[in-house]
């Protein structure tokens, strides 16, 4: 008995510093994930200054990492021991349900919007005017784990009497990013694309001729756009501090510059209630999150 007690005591003495050290380590660096919603190089370019800004303000090195695929996000979050991530609408809901993260802030775009819509787009010269014309065509989705690039379209098709959208099309595929879904339609590699409105608008801003090339056949209701969700494992004081820094950065000249690089005007509060429209879409699409296979 005495031997067992000594063994337990020694184990505690060995393990305690290790545990303390690992907590200390997590406080020395914050790692935040980014979903690959656009060209990853451009996306990293946009977010890097925000990492530097948070590092300075928190005095803790803050790094971003791009999660290679939407479908991997939940696994990657756990494997890489992330402290948080900027999620899309669907991945936020997945993370809230599966990772027990907390929505903290949302980005407000330059035009004042904090939401994005899903678009079903076609080339104007495709001859596709409505859902009937889509039968037997090729459709490009973004990923199974996107609201604007997949979920809304599935809900839309089901609402329009198409019980099995996948067999309605000749071919379907997932492009992995909204940018790519848009380009697939523009290049004629897909007849139909499901893509986020903000990505389309941004592309049109850079290349106005694109507006003459695409038609929007359907659009979703406004859905919460990019949202920072933080792990509840992260110290609550630190979570609050991060939120405070982000919410007030539009009043800091240095913060304004970072927001400009990010293509945003400010951060606003986010809550779980923001995602009610996504939960509604899940119902319409007949998707149960507990059994849903969001990985491809």
């Amino acid at each position, binding site marked *: 008995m005495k031997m067992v007690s000594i063994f337990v005591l020694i184990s505690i003495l060995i393990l305690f510093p290790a545990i303390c050290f690992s907590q200390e380590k997590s406080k020395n660096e914050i790692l935040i994930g980014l979903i690959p919603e656009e*060209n*990853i*190089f*451009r996306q990293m370019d946009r977010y890097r200054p925000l990492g530097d800004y948070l590092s300075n303000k928190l005095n803790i090195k803050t790094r971003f990492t791009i999660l290679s695929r939407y479908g991997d996000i939940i696994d990657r979050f756990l494997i890489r021991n992330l402290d948080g991530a900027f999620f899309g609408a669907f991945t936020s809901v997945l993370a809230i349900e599966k990772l027990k993260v907390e929505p903290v802030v949302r980005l407000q775009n330059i035009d004042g919007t904090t939401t994005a819509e899903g678009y079903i787009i076609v*080339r104007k*010269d*495709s*001859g596709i005017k409505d859902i009937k014309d889509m039968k*037997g*065509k*090729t459709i490009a989705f973004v990923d199974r784990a996107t609201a604007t690039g997949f979920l809304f379209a599935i809900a839309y098709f089901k609402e329009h009497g198409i019980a099995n959208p996948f067999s309605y099309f*000749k071919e379907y595929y997932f492009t*992995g990013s909204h*940018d*790519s879904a848009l*380009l*697939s*339609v*523009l*290049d*004629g*590699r*897909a*007849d139909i694309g499901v893509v986020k409105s903000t990505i389309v608008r941004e592309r049109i801003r850079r*290349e*106005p*001729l*694109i507006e003459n*090339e695409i038609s929007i056949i359907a659009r979703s209701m406004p859905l919460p756009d990019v949202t920072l969700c933080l792990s509840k494992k992260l110290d609550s004081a630190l979570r609050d501090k991060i939120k405070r820094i982000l919410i007030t950065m539009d009043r800091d000249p240095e913060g304004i510059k970072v927001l400009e690089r990010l293509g945003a005007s400010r951060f606003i509060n986010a809550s779980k209630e923001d995602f009610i429209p996504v939960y509604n879409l899940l119902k319409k699409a007949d998707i149960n999150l507990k059994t849903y296979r969001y990985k491809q």
Partner: protein
Amino acid sequence: MKFFKNIFLYLLVTFLIYSFYNSESFAQQKKTIGIILPSNVPYYEEVHTHVLKRLEGNIISGDIDLLIQKPYPDPIALSNAVRKLIALNVDIIISYGTEATLAAIREKPQQPIIFVGGYNPVLEKYRSNNITGVEFKTPILSITRYLNSMKEIKTLGVVYNPLESDSVYQLNEFLKCCPFYKITVIKIPIKTASELKKILPEKKVDALIFTTSSIANIALSGFSNTGIPVATLLPRKDAKPIISLYPSAKKQAEKAVSIIQNVIKGKRPLEIPRDLSADMELIFNLAEAYKMNLRISADLLTEATEVVY
């Protein structure tokens, strides 16, 4: 009144029986398919090879005879080829490419015309009871964007044939969209493939685009490495364009065979909608780009359906 009604009913029933018998007997007869395949355009050869493979798999051997004409892709040679097929009284005419199809349409044959690889903006206006087929559109804006993202282009040479309507249409599209990218379009009209070598040295261009013209495609074959980046809207394996953007040969063939089968079964072309699906192939030749010190960014490469290393 009753008499006229009976006459009308009699005529209607007779017509229906005749139509039914006619389509049934058409379907049962051995068919001769006449094919117009412009020579020296490997893309059409490739589509045709896929068509033959699929036909062999789907139609009992011996059910069809094929009569293939491979004229040089100029309007006179194409028209002569169509006339031969009409004279030989083929049952169906299959034409590859826009100009071969236009040649077939001009001859006003009684036979059904099924076109493959037809350029929609040109063929759209030619609609009649005996024409159907597989068509495509070329996204001019896309190829301009991709080419421009590899190299800053100020002058873009567009190789086209004034006698081929599809290439003239594409030239006009380039003229519309290039000013947006601050690119000046330099017209390079050729009526024979050899003209390119004579004309090109007179033109100062940062890059070249070959339109879907068959003549331009033949010229692309002999186009030696001049250090000028080349993009093409009709592929050619014996040339090395940096970017190729064109409709998938396999998919064109797949859709064509489905139409051919329906016509063989007795359906009239009018009843078979033309197929205009998006099945474009986007190919980047990385090896050639490196030789010219051009960088194709990773995000561009992810868009490609094929990358040549």
